[in-house]
């Protein structure tokens, strides 16, 4: 892979408790990482993951809170059930399981997400591009599916 691995980052807006980390994610993300902030991991529909894969992402990282630390009490529990199953299901039909990474963060964690993203990017680059699961045909800039 010549270009850097493309990562879709789905982030729960409460999981980075330290303002410095959140600031880094909001403003200083490298260009190959596409950030989607959601109110809670429970809001992340499995379709978002599929959409990211079909849109050409090499890997997906989902960062959320640990159990009992969810801002909405149980959002992360519901998310884990669905998203983990969706990942298993994608693996069953031939998509590499390692390309979807969950990052459950403790409220005390500082500076974890940067390290994890860098490690994940390295792993993805070692794995190379995938030809499993078709990507959608890109429309012109500003088109409906672009």
């Amino acid at each position, binding site marked *: 892979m010549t270009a850097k691995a493309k990562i879709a980052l789905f982030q729960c807006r409460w999981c980075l408790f330290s303002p410095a980390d959140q600031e880094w994610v909001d403003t200083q993300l490298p260009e190959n990482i596409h950030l989607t902030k959601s109110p809670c991991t429970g809001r992340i529909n*499995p*379709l978002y993951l*599929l*959409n990211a894969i*079909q849109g050409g992402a090499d890997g997906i990282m989902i960062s959320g809170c*640990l*159990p*009992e630390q969810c801002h909405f009490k*149980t959002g*992360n*529990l*519901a998310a*884990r*059930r*669905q998203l*983990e*199953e*969706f990942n*298993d*299901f*994608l693996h*069953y*039909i*031939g*998509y*590499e*399981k*390692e390309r*979807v*990474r*969950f*990052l*459950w*963060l*403790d409220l005390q*964690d500082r500076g*974890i997400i940067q390290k*994890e993203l860098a490690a994940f990017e390295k792993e993805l680059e070692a794995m190379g591009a995938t030809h*499993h*699961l*078709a*990507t*959608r*045909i890109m429309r012109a800039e500003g088109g*409906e*599916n672009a």
Partner: protein
Amino acid sequence: MPDINALRLEAKRVLREGIVDVVVGFKPGDSPLHPQPAFFRNEDEVEELIHNGLCKNNLANYLTRLPKQEKVGMLVRGCENRSVNSLIVESQKERDDLYLIGVPCEGIIDWRQIVEQAGEHISLVEESETLVTVHTPAGVNSFNRFELLHESCQRCLYRNPISADIVIGDPVANGSLDPVAQKVKDFENQDIEARYAFFQKEAERCIRCYACREACPSCYCAECFVDHNAPRWTESGATPAGMQGWHIVRAFHQSGRCTSCGACERACPMDIKMTYLTEKLNHDMREKYNFECGMDAETKPPFQTVTLDDKNRFFLGGGN
């Protein structure tokens, strides 16, 4: 085989006594291979009622399509009974508005196999417990009934109705879990390339007619995710990504809600294999959450419930 006269008598009785407004069952179709779903609203029509191994629809499908205020009587086999239960859990119908006439099921015959082996010109199909006799202009052929069964019926776990108001016919033996688990494991043990190649080959034949969706009792959304185009949930055109997306998400929406009746596969005009997807999800629900869809009318599917017992399954500090 259920006694058809007993079924008709019971259907007539519930209509006459006003217990239900409509009885959903089957009547003969254009060809002996294709009995069609029928709605009986008065006693005279019930004479047409039939029930045999070629009745391939899942009648629970009509529960959400009939007017909500109607009291419905329905002929249910094991899988249909479970689908009805799962719809009650999802508040699509009140149990009090239903009268379920249970029919122990010996499996649905795959009509495609009959056509393959005996040709298209079929005048009569007769069944016994072990044999299927097919009459064609060329002669009479007999086949082993079990071998003609649809794949998901060969592995059926619950053949008897679970919560029917009345069961007509003798109970039959239930299936065992082993062949189901074995099938999922066999597929899982294949190489990742082989798995993807199989999925790709099946998905790319899709003509996007959505017959699988229409045949499925669990697919009752007023607007399906593929029909919703502003904003678009996912690629929904007739492209490789669109086909794969449809197959992935259609199956995934059934997780914890599928009863493995196989109606989707039987409805597919392109003969695409689909039950291997939903069976994996059902298998996972059994393994991870000890949940079997439709076994009662109260337990919610795993994705609708959350429990802190799950917390040990989070991996602390990241990683998979």
